[in-house]
């Protein structure tokens, strides 16, 4: 028994890595199409967008780094599709240098997608992307007072003052809703200087690691909802009625979670077995 326990405890880490790699790759090649249940947290963001009348302006903040793209991009795409299908007007911005490119990619994908389905979007009228603006908290405070004066130009260098989408926008408070796509604590800054000072309603699309940390904000009513990680993304895709990147990623994530749980149980079984055998000796 002791020998078995020791053998299990000294298992080569490369075996664990290989099993994990298989668990990731197989569901990608052969999707399991597992069902997804929708949580109230994800519904909180969806319902808020559903409530807005067509023509309302929504702001999306691309506050995540390239490493988080596989997790956050599906949420960004889903939220943008939702807004634009509901004829809402979308303005994007990023307060991270590296978030700028993420936003640009998402805007390009969405514009191309709508063009292909015969409903082309007019840049500057239906959607606009302001790009990266420096200053973190000060930038948000300035956006609250003078949106166009703070942005000045969009990511292409076009004059913000001449954009029809920003015509009746004075400050951040003129937007009906803000969705923060983030992979760190950026949403807290938007809450502090956006929600608390300007009063803009906020929804969060977070990486799975960050989501538990903002449940207190949800409980306090500072957020309308949280779309957390691939799970949240897959819930949002289900709400919109399609299976996208988040849903297909959930198959791999499910198997990995089960595999890690199995490893934890096996490790503990071996540990307890060894302890038990040592006591007997």
């Amino acid at each position: 028994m002791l020998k078995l326990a020791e053998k299990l405890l000294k298992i080569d880490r490369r075996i664990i890595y290989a099993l994990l790699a298989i668990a990731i790759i197989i569901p990608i090649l052969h999707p399991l199409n597992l069902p997804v249940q929708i949580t109230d947290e994800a519904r909180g963001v969806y319902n808020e967008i559903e409530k807005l009348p067509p023509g309302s302006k929504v702001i999306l903040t691309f506050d995540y780094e390239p490493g988080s793209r596989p997790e956050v991009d599906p949420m960004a795409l889903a939220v943008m599709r939702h807004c634009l299908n509901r004829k809402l007007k979308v303005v994007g911005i990023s307060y991270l240098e590296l978030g700028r490119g993420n936003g640009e990619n998402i805007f390009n994908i969405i514009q191309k997608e709508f063009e292909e389905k015969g409903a082309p979007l007019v840049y500057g009228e239906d959607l606009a992307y302001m790009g990266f603006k420096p200053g973190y908290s000060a930038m948000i405070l300035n956006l609250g007072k003078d949106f166009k004066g703070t942005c000045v130009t969009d990511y292409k260098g076009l004059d913000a003052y001449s954009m029809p989408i920003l015509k009746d926008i004075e400050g951040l408070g003129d937007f009906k809703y803000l969705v923060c796509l983030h992979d760190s604590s950026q949403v807290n800054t938007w809450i502090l200087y956006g929600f608390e000072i300007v009063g803009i309603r906020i929804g969060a699309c977070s990486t799975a690691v960050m989501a538990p940390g903002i449940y207190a904000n949800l409980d306090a009513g500072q957020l309308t909802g949280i779309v957390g990680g691939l799970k949240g993304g897959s819930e949002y895709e289900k709400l919109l009625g399609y299976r996208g990147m988040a849903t297909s990623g959930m198959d791999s994530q499910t198997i990995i979670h089960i595999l890690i749980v199995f490893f934890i149980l096996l490790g503990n079984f071996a540990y307890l077995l060894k302890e038990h055998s040592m006591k007997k000796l």
Partner: protein
Amino acid sequence: MSFFKRRLPLLIVLFTGIVMMISYYVPHKPFSQFWDGANKWYMLIAGFTMVLGVVSLVRNHYRKIRQGKQGFGYSIVMFIAMIVTAVFGVIPHSESSPIWGNRSGSVFMWIFDYINTAAAGTVYSLLAFYIASAAYRAFRVRTLDATIMLITALIVMIGRVPYGEMFSDFLTNSIGKGLVFLRLDNLTSFFLNYPVVATRRAITLGLGLATISTSLRVILGIEKTYMGGD
């Protein structure tokens, strides 16, 4: 000299700190003007911090190459990457030369999509392998605290994936509706909405109080480490 080096910065911090505090609660002239002006200044200064970052990066890596320190080859790679990215990104984009600038189709965006994103994603995804290995080796039921943490982690991990939801459905639909409190998705939701929220609030309040006390120490000139030296 001591006045300009030590006293004047302290006086600026004292004045700015007190006026900004008052401005937050008194949104009227002249405080509102000071508030707006200071925030615009902050944005400009934040932009310039990038210059400071680049200068510091160049100095450190240049020193490493000049002294031939171990791993100086990586510094050369860093210089090449920085110069290539900066040159392609800074030269303005135009319809006739779309490879320049930082818009779609430019070399800069190609680097962003196919080098930066790919490399960052790879490093990030390696975490899954380390976590799996660490979970197998270190996550043990050694103490009561560790056992509680382990059980909670197992419930949340399974409760957040479809199989957990399917198992919960089986539990309540096939075994008995009375077992609804054992549904893994409900338990996960409970953990996230109550213990996590309570703990998070305690941490946030602690952080807030610590921030206030540190800020007051800086404003009143007690904490001077940001000036260098003591």
